């Protein structure tokens, strides 16, 4: 038997899991429509590749992955695209995002499914296939799975952890999946094993699910693998990836470090299952198991299409009359959806019918008494009351000193707080403020450098222009001076006007003078541009006259030639 480790903190809320495990998984009926959000994973938002009116088949790709960390999305059923655009999505903000809405034709007709033998393919191809099949972490974080399937170059892979802990109260979809489809989970885990080549594969399941443990042990045997199925103590959040890794391997993955750097990687059981379906059956991720529970008459697990409106799915469980909302996810980390019609997404593992009887409204917040309960409950060993203090005061620099970004928002601190302070809410607020500020700062830095560059460029252009003009003016002046000299030489009455400081002028002075001349020329040009343009089209005669006048003016000292006379 493997030696288990402990993680600090954690809480033991009532698990409320028994209600929804008495019935086997049911297939949810076709909904009235499906609205598939394009952005269902961490990373780039897929681009829609269908248009309104297109006929799509079940499993047909409708959103192309954008960038490496991104995953494709697919039509959950066959039908007609009736809308591509903004729809309210299950997000705490209640905002809309791009979705593809499909009206089912009722035939549920598949695209051609191609099964592949992944063992005969290069690892890159397998990763690409998973990306194309939209396989993402179904534990709730929805990180694209293919992005986690590259072992670190320097560190050998020691353990692969398959997460069947399912620590949040009420949720039982992974439990049922392991009980009923354990073999496929094991085969999926084998895919990950083959790609990552770890020394050991550990399947961790909380010990409040003995049926799942037994089912998985049988499945491992049936498939003929040497995976270890381990019952871990039931304590929230044992199902957090970092906590489960700690319990099974003793390794602590610090914030900002990849777990592969410590030679370990973790996947949810449902992710393993979908990876197997994607490769061995050619089925992209278009449905998932969802626990329908809470204030309902018939709690049960359903295999529901992605995009199913939540109220339609919840209706299958027959919510009681006082139901006043839907929590997506568990009661610890889930959130009340802003609109009951939002679609089921890949992250939706559970729908809990909310009622005030089941989840009493919270009592008013009291001041923090620094009792330290939160610090003892924090699985990441943070000091939530200190972070709260600074978040509340909007002293975000200090919150970072207390490692606010190590917070996994598991809710243990809020759970135990005797003053009923919504601590997690404060931390989320502080984090999103910090992110927004980072972004703003970056934007303002970019603006500043661009502004400074523009100023520099303007200055440079001005100088270049000035130089150019100066050169032109100098050339002209030289020409004029030459003409004047010529005129003098022709023997016209030469008055004893001393030629203005001719030979002594140094080249530096010359440049200066040229600049002045250029400035004057510019001003003149400006004036000319403003004045009526009666000097534009002159006859040769007129031009000669002007030149003669100019020469006379010059000779009489009215106009000073800029350049020393050419000798």
């Amino acid at each position, binding site marked *: 038997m493997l030696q288990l480790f402990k*993680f*600090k903190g954690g*809480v033991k*809320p*009532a698990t409320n899991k028994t209600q929804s495990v008495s019935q086997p998984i049911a297939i949810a009926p076709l909904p009235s429509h499906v609205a598939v959000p394009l952005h269902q994973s961490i990373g780039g938002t897929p681009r829609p590749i269908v248009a309104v009116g297109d006929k799509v088949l079940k499993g047909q790709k409708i959103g192309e992955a954008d960038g490496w960390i991104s995953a494709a999305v697919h039509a959950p059923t066959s039908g007609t695209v009736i809308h591509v655009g903004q729809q309210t999505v299950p997000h705490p903000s209640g905002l809309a995002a791009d979705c593809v809405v499909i009206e089912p034709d009722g035939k549920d007709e598949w695209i051609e499914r191609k099964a592949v033998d992944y063992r005969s393919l290069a690892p890159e191809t397998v990763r690409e296939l998973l990306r194309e099949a939209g396989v993402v972490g179904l534990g709730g974080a929805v990180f694209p799975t293919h992005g986690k399937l590259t072992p670190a170059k320097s560190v050998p892979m020691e353990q692969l952890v398959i997460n069947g802990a399912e620590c949040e*109260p009420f949720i039982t979809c992974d439990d049922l999946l392991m009980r009923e489809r354990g073999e496929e989970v094991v085969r999926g885990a084998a895919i990950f094993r083959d790609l990552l080549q770890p020394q050991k594969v550990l399947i961790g399941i909380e010990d409040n699910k003995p049926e799942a443990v037994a089912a998985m042990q049988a499945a491992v045997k049936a498939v003929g693998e040497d995976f270890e199925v381990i019952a871990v103590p039931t304590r929230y959040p044992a199902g957090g990836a*970092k906590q489960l890794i*700690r319990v099974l391997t003793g390794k*602590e*993955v*610090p*914030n900002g*470090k990849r777990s592969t750097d410590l030679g370990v990687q973790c996947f949810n059981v449902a992710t393993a299952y979908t990876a197997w379906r994607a490769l061995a059956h050619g089925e992209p991720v278009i449905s998932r198991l969802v626990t329908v529970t809470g204030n309902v008459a018939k709690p049960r697990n359903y295999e529901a299409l992605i995009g199913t409106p939540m109220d339609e799915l919840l209706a299958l469980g027959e919510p009681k009359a006082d139901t*006043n*909302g839907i*929590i997506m996810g568990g*009661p*610890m*980390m*889930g*959130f*009340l959806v*802003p609109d009951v019609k939002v679609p089921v997404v890949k992250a939706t593992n559970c729908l809990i019918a*909310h009622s005030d009887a089941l*989840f009493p*409204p*919270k*009592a*008013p917040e*009291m*001041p*923090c*008494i*620094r*009792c*330290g*309960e939160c*610090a003892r409950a924090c*699985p*990441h*060993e*943070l*000091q939530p*009351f200190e972070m709260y203090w600074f978040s509340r005061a909007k002293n975000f620099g200090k919150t970072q000193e*207390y*490692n606010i970004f*190590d917070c996994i928002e598991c*809710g243990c601190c*809020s*759970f*135990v*707080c*005797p*003053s*009923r302070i*919504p601590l*997690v*809410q404060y931390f989320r607020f502080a984090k999103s403020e910090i992110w927004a500020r980072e972004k703003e700062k970056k934007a303002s830095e970019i603006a500043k450098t661009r502004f400074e560059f523009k100023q520099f460029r303007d200055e440079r252009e001005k100088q270049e222009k000035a130089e150019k003009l100066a050169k032109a003016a100098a050339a002209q002046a030289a020409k004029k001076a030459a003409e004047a000299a010529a005129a003098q030489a022709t023997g016209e009455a030469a008055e004893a006007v001393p030629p203005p400081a001719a030979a002594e002028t140094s080249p530096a002075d010359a440049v200066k003078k040229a600049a002045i001349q250029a400035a004057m020329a510019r001003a003149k040009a400006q004036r000319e541009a403003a004045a009526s343009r009666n000097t534009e089209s002159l006859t040769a005669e007129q031009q000669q006259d002007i030149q003669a006048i100019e020469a006379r003016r010059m000779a009489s000292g009215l106009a000073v030639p800029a350049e020393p006379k050419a000798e």
Partner: protein
Amino acid sequence: MSMDFSTPPYLLKNASVTRVMTQVLLALVPAIAVYTWLIGPAILIQIAIASLAALLGEALMLKVRRQPLAPFLGDGSAIVTAWLIALVFPPLAPWWMVVVGTLFAIVVAKQLYGGLGQNPFNPAMVAFAVCIVSFPALMSQWPNQALHLGFADQFQIIFGLTPRLDALTAATPLDALKTGLKLGEGQVGVAALLANQDVYGQFAGRGWEWITLCYLLGGLWLWQRKIITWQVPTAYIGALAAISGALWLYDPAQFASPLFHLFSGGAMLGAFFIATDPVSGSTTPRGKLIFGAGAGLLTYLIRVFGGYPDGVAFAILLMNICTPLIDLYTQPPIFGMKNGK
């Protein structure tokens, strides 16, 4: 229909400040019962006076600060302060002194700093310190163990209805020992003084030793209920026992045994009920050890070498000052960062 967008977690543990404070009060009940039985019912009168004053002071300040009354009066923190004040003041202290002390604790030490959770100093200890500085004589008059006064007599003394006769009162065992040693000028040893069981009881003061034992039991119950953690009391008791033990071994004639120090005066009350106050005390595990040990050491030094009859209040107040600094330097390593990375 409005939808509550309250935030996760939607499940909460059944915990509240009131529950915490109620359990602290419950833990004090056995000691109060023994106190009533051995010393007299005066303590019940003092508890009533202090509670009333605390609630009135709190209500008044909440009104002034425009805070809602119900949640803060109901949180029980003022009552805890009041009970602690009643327990650390002499049981025959005049009513007005208890009222002054309590009001100072609630109005100045607690509410003026921002109320619940904001006070840097333990309010009950501030009350004790203020009164012992302002009324040193009255604060040193403890009931004479040789006399047994009934409820009516004690009531009359507290409210000044009968004259406060010197014969009625005596010094505490701690004070008496210190004075006795000083008067004896090295001629009289601790052992000889402690032989006087009328004053010193079985091992640490007649009557008082059993009350402090009850504080210990109440404190252990609080620890078992996870209201307090083990660090502060352990460090406090450990430090007090260590320094008193060391000096006792050095010269048993001049220095009382650790047993005497642990069960005399406010040591147990301080270790389990006052130094463990989370608001004014240290909060990190290592910080709590430092805090407790510091308070234990200072208690002994003030007791034995200082001018005051007991050192608990000043020791804890001094450590309260250091709390932010202790916390700053004892932040525990977080998950994944334990190898000094």
